């Protein structure tokens, strides 16, 4: 009755799937130049490679430009209500743990109205992949600031500049004890693909912070890492077991000064002090440190901040069902009768 998780059984039905199997018949309606196109393309490239039959995929979104995503992917899809996609996804996984469930959300959808559901699905470690398209703006409602907009940013709803310091999405996810947290850039195709693959392979909630450009309402928000040249300079690629090195010539490194990160030009002297990335560290101290780095003081870390294994929520849920069955057979008549039934005879 309870099926196994997809990874356990690379399905025959998944053989021969290709990118075009994941393109739906709906016209894509994002603005020309929107970063969402690139993410869609990467996903359509990734999904056929996962060994999962197409019908096992479910895309669940909230509301926002980003949340139109499910319409364009020819799998099962559910465009729900603002901020609630993780909650809907939890129900889907509870019902069918074997599905590959992807939540598509935005910085407003996922961090403003939906912040609580995000946190709780992370802490529960529901096996869903959450892709947060962060354009640091409300796109669909035409340009209000979001929880990731820079302090002081002038938008339609903050003509004098915002007065709210932004959240760091990766930090919030780590603070909620997420088991997988990563970041990628819409235009950085191969890397985005790599990160998405890792997310797909993770058992538990995988949170991917995707830096996405909204050319219409917030053009250039992530200029420092979107353009290839800039990215080589300002992006800090995280690779497990390797030192935190960046810069056009890969000559800059991150070291600790006390408990704060510091940029150094690498020399033979300080080479040893450069921090080594460890996505599996028992304590997410380093991940936290990286999560708070912002440009221009620091490079922007890209890649996998943390990836650890913990039991998943739906697996535990099903295990309790199985355990209960081991303890007691499901006898409906007995249940309805309760502990103290009595008979009333014909008078």
């Amino acid at each position: 009755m309870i099926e196994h998780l997809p990874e356990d059984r690379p399905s025959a039905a998944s053989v021969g799937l290709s990118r075009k199997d994941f393109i739906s018949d709906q016209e894509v309606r994002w603005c020309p130049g929107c970063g969402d196109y690139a993410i869609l393309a990467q996903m359509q490239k990734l999904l056929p490679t996962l060994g999962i039959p197409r019908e096992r995929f479910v895309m669940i979104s909230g509301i926002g430009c980003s949340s139109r995503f499910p319409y364009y992917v020819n799998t099962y899809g559910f465009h729900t209500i603002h901020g609630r996609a993780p909650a809907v996804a939890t129900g889907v996984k509870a019902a069918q743990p074997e599905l590959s469930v992807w939540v598509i959300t935005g910085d407003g959808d996922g961090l403003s109205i939906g912040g609580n559901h995000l946190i709780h699905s992370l802490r529960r470690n529901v096996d869903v992949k959450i892709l947060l398209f962060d354009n640091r703006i409300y796109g669909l409602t035409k340009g209000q600031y979001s929880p990731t907009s820079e302090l002081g940013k002038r938008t339609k709803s903050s003509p004098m500049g915002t007065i709210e310091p932004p959240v760091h999405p990766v930090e919030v996810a780590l603070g909620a004890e997420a088991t997988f947290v990563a970041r990628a850039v819409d235009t950085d195709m191969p890397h985005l693909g790599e990160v998405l693959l890792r997310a797909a392979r993770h058992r538990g909630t995988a949170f991917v912070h995707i830096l996405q450009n909204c050319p219409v309402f917030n053009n250039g928000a992530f200029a420092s890492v979107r353009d290839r040249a800039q990215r080589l300079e300002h992006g800090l690629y995280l690779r497990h077991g390797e030192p935190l090195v960046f810069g056009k010539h890969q000559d800059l490194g991150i070291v600790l000064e006390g408990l704060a990160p510091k940029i150094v030009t690498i020399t033979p002297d300080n080479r040893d002090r450069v921090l080594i990335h460890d996505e599996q560290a028992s304590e997410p101290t380093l991940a936290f440190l990286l999560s708070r780095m912002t440009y221009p003081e620091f490079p922007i870390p890209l890649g996998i901040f943390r990836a650890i294994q913990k039991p998943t929520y739906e697996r535990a849920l099903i295990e309790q069902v199985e355990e209960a069955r081991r303890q007691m057979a499901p006898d409906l008549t007995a249940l309805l009768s309760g502990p103290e039934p009595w008979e009333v005879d014909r008078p």
Partner: protein
Amino acid sequence: MPMPDAITSSKPTQELAAVTIRFAGDSGDGMQLTGERFAAVTALAGNDFQTLPDFPAEIRAPAGTLSGVSGFQIHLGSHRITTPGDRIDVLVAMNPAALKTAWPALKSGAMLILNDNTFTEADLKKASYESNPLDDGSLDTFDIRRLPMNRLTEEALAALPLSPKEKDRCKNFFVLGLVSWLYTRPIEPTQAWIEKKFSRSPELARANALAFEAGYRLAETSDLFPIRYVIPKAPIQPGRYRKITGNEAAALACVAAGQRAGKPVVFASYPITPASDILHELARHKQFDMRTIQAEDEIAAACAAIGASYAGSVGVTATSGPGLDLKTEAIGLAVMAELPLVVIDVQRGGPSTGLPTKTEQADLLQALHGRHGECPVVVLAASTPGDCFFTVYEACRLAIKYMTPVIVLSDAFLANGAEPWRIPDVAALPEFEIPQVSEQTSSTGFHPYARDAMTLARPWVPPGTPGLEHRIGGLEKEHVTGNVSYDPVNHETMVAYRAEKIQRVTADIPPLTIHGSPEGAVLVIGWGSTWGAITAAVEQAQQEGRAVSSLHVRHLHPLPCDLLEIARRFETIMVPELNTGHLQGLLQTRLLRKIHGLHKIQGQPFLQSEIYEAIARLT
């Protein structure tokens, strides 16, 4: 030494048709257990009954105070019993606060069995008595039986190696023994129960058994109780019975629905009084593939239930008023996505936090209209604790058959009240009909919004189904294809379809049963938990020859087809409701005539007498 029983007792007996007893004491006195056990043996004695616990307000108050009183009322008799009793015939009061709290509900001349040990100055003060009612004459018109229950219990257990506190906590069994004697209840079942319950600590088993025996014996021997009462068996339909509360029944219905539908049930909920017990109950029945989720809030609970339905499980959520507010938007999504969803609303006193432990029926209009846009859902209401089972079961069945949210209205009174319930035959429960993909699919392609010709339901195609991948969502959908559509006429068409689909549910509503003459002077129309009081009052009036009939509505949206036609056959219609007139207004719009309302908004159920008097005024 064998205990005396009804036959060996030396005292005379008197036959009674019915009696209402309230056990009341401090929260720590164990009166709920006394009541529960008394109800259990009452069932075995063959009487019909209804019970109603009356918990203290949310937080435990200091011992002995008015806010700490916990009561349990039972109404039992040799005829059909439909209410927990208007007025108390017999009060067992473990302390002055219990007496004071029960005061307004005492029948004149009621028997008061009082625990003498607690009528001390300190306890009287805690109960805000200015003088001792035992002395100041205020109890003169009652039939007083004073006993030092603490001391008597203590004495009975003197020989046992237990702490004074442990011994004291046995006095509820002393009371049970005493009242069991008084109403000639069988004793073996209680003895057996004690043995089983305390099997892990024989000391406590022995103590409680002794206390029980002591109470029983005391009544037999004391001059305070010169006679005992016999209540003949009620003419109950033969069968297998159990005692059930509304919340238990609602929970069991979820299990039964999943089993009969052949699907897992995902029950996602957030705790709230008085609905939490449904979650507690279901969390204990995982062996039925019952998957319970305690969500982070009510929004998440509703959304998780929707996600589960979307993925082919039976998605259910339960809450009370404030939680229903929060589920509003999600229910709208389920309406648009046309997914099954069952929302159980255990109504309590409102508005806002209101009276969280009290009963009310004031969420009806919200259930009907409380969502933006044209957003119709099915609304059902349960009428008795046991009926919560059938109503919730029916809700699950309709939700799936018609691919729609169904709101079930229960209330605090039903949720906690208990009655004997004839255990249904599992095989005889109505079948589930799962909306299927239509035959043409192969030729014309799959259309998620192609509707069944009869029910107008769209097919239920959960993810995982090969070849039928599709997308749904909260934006307006194109008829048949389900694609997003901004077309003006399509919108009107879809609004009409969604409304008509709900109307089609009338095909599943059985003809209404009229209690009394099928036409005439007065028709009392009720819904929900008022059934018991209405039935009792109408029967009382009918026995007096008054021209009154009644009918009770389970389906509040859509209304049964025959309702209006029946209503037109009566000169006067009265609708008693625990609100300001919700159904009254609905019927008035439909019938275009004045409907009499009877409104009570006190956090309490109707008394039989209140409804009876209203009938009397009209007949």
